């Protein structure tokens, strides 16, 4: 991938059309799927979606229109598995500290 040029946020999303993305909602819910399109409100059309919910568990959805209202973050190419090493370590340390 080319180094990040000066790109408007919506242009970045536009570049992701046709590829896999990872969408994180305000609510903590996540969606991973292929981005087919979006509009000015960042409502998104996604295909072959995995819905990840920390409480309800995962689900598969063939094709959805996702309301942009509660979208918090979008990660291009994200597979929903990538977690920063530091974050995990930190939480572990916190747990350890609590126990200690």
């Amino acid at each position, binding site marked *: 991938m080319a180094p990040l040029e000066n790109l408007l946020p919506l242009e970045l999303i536009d570049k992701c059309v046709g590829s896999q993305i990872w969408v994180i909602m305000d609510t903590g819910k996540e969606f991973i799927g292929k981005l087919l*399109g979006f*509009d000015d409100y960042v409502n998104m059309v996604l*295909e072959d979606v995995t819905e990840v919910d920390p409480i309800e568990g995962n689900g598969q959805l*063939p*094709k*959805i229109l*996702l309301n942009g*209202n509660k979208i918090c973050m979008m990660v291009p190419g994200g597979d929903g598995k990538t977690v920063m090493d530091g974050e995990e370590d930190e939480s572990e340390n916190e747990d350890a500290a609590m126990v200690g």
Partner: protein
Amino acid sequence: MAKEEEVRPNGTPDDDQVESDAKDPSGFLSEIIGAPVTVKLNSGIIYKGDLQSVDGYMNIALERCREISDGRLVRNWGDAFVRGNNVTYICADSA
């Protein structure tokens, strides 16, 4: 010099526009009108039914609307209106 009849916004080739339209939200919606859909609300409630119509607020009119919880039918609502602000997603069941 003759005045141009049609002023086209810069850089929008017609064919591309049509193709991308089919895949953006409004194109997707017009594609699935009349089809069976699953609507999930922010509260986690799931409604299944036939998509009768949608508007720009994502207000939804559903026919044969059933409320589903844990994959089980909870209630039959018949024709229902769902206010758009509550909607998380609309899923095309047939796609």
